[in-house]
């Protein structure tokens, strides 16, 4: 069957492993023409969800439809859905070009498609080198080339920024944005909130296999306290914590006695400390790590797993 649109509809997807419900009655939709960030801390069930959507892992219940059709029922699926998943490697002894030629052959595409895909990700100079000699960044690029090979309407990427240098991350971000602008559906998972703030139009946030929130990125992050985390060290942590909490900040104490604050920016925290007469030894705005935000969002609601 052929998909009727680029929309993805995930309905009540559940995966029960022996002791663990990795994905728990998860439903969300993904729209074409937008980049959708699929967010959750490590172990939240992102990879399991994506693999179920793509027919690699059998769901305990629920399903995922691409334009109304399950992945397994798509004719020539890679011409509609391109995917880059974790642990999707290539044979170490095969060249990058031959890796793509195998995929092109299986999909009934001409060998020239492999060369075009290589050029698209800037790997042409390494086309005849073996996969084992590729850097992590080159491996990711080859994975992207494979995902784009069939010129798909829908792209699904699992933590594509893992192991990329800042240059590589920017390249990936620009590419994904460009693909969305062309009207394609782009679903990209990550455990780093900061990464998504600059890339995603929509976000789907999960924790412990359950949906936490879904919507346009600005709306959702606003409701999560802006997402930024500030690290503060002071000789009087208890007093500062009380002052910040009074100013609607959210404070947790880190193992090294420093405070981790969300909901307030560094300038505001500095001001509060100054007016309370509390000495500061460190005041650092940190990259928002979704995992930290989650720890704070779920503090008090422990036992999420």
């Amino acid at each position, binding site marked *: 069957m052929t998909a009727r649109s680029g929309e993805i509809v995930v309905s009540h997807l559940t995966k029960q492993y022996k002791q663990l419900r990795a994905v728990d009655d998860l439903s969300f939709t993904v729209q074409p023409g937008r980049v959708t960030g699929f967010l959750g801390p490590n172990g939240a069930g992102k*990879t*399991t969800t994506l*693999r179920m959507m*793509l*027919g*690699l*892992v*059998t769901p305990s219940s629920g399903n995922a439809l691409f334009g109304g059709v399950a*992945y*397994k029922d*798509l004719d020539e*699926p*890679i011409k509609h859905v391109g*995917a880059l*998943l974790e*642990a*999707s*490697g*290539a*044979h*170490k*002894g*095969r*060249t990058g070009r*031959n*890796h793509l*030629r*195998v*995929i092109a*052959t*299986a*999909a*009934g595409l001409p060998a020239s498609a492999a060369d075009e895909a290589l050029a698209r990700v800037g790997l042409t100079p390494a086309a005849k080198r073996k996969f084992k000699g590729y850097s992590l960044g080159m491996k990711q690029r080859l994975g992207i080339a*494979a995902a784009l090979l069939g010129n798909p309407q829908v792209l699904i990427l699992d933590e594509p920024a893992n192991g990329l240098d800042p240059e590589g991350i920017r390249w990936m971000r620009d590419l994904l944005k460009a693909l969305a602008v062309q009207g394609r559906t782009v679903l990209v998972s990550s455990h780093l909130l900061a990464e998504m703030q600059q890339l995603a139009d929509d976000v789907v946030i999960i924790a412990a296999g359950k949906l936490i929130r879904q919507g346009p990125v600005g709306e959702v992050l606003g409701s999560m306290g802006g997402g930024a985390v500030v690290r503060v060290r002071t000789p009087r942590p208890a007093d500062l914590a009380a002052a910040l909490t009074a100013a609607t900040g959210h404070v947790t104490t880190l193992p090294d006695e420093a405070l981790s604050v969300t909901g307030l920016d560094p300038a505001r925290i500095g001001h509060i400390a100054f007016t309370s007469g509390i000495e500061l030894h460190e005041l650092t705005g940190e990259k928002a790590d979704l995992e930290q935000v989650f720890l704070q969002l779920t503090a008090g609601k422990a036992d999420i797993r």
Partner: protein
Amino acid sequence: MKLLRAELLKIWTTSTWWVFGIVTLVLWALTTGINWLTASATLDVDTTGMDAETAEQVRVAGEAVNVATNLYTSGQFFGVLMVMLLTAILSTSEYFHQTATTTFLLTPRRETVVLAKLGAGVVFGLLFWVITTVLNLIVTPLILSSLDVGAQLGEGAVWRAILLNGLAYGIWAILGVGAGILIRSQLAATITLSLIYVIGFLGAAIIFQLIGDRFGDWFQNLQVLIPGLASQLMVSGTELPGNPPRWVGAAVLIVYALVAGIVGTIITKKRDIT
């Protein structure tokens, strides 16, 4: 067809096939050398046996056919082992190199992937058969003439043995694909299959030699259930007294291959690819 071409391309684009090819050629040369010595020994004994008359001459002629078939199918013992290992790697490398994800994204109907692998495996099995057979067809007449025996290529039994040898290569290729699915680890699969093949063959031969006589003919005939012995039986020249007919050897191997293929397909369909 697209998938079969892709599977063949997978084999061609790595070094595995020619490494196994070279190993096979070396082992073929060794086996052929040994067969040569055996042949000359066998034939010598027979030709120097002057005590009998016509009956004995007929027996010698029969012997020559059998010696010839042995030489024309030379290299089978290690050849099919190499083919089995090569085709097992066709399956195991998908997990070893984490290409299973890509493969099953391309083809969510996994049974067709298994079929394509079986097809590619058989193609390679037959390729190994063709190459060793061509070598045997070149070398064997030379060996035979050095032993003052004719080339025997007029004998139906010789050609039948050569064809059945091809069948054996094809079946072992299928066995390999199935075994590679059952034993997912590349190293474990390679070691286990080699050990089972060699030790199973020698062990079974010894056991049947030692205790077989106590149970009588029916027990001796069970030898054919050992895959390695079954494929040897297939290529024996004429019916050898006290052995099951050749087709039994083929049937046994086909049953093994079917079981391996079907079980492999079912497992592949059910397995979560993570």
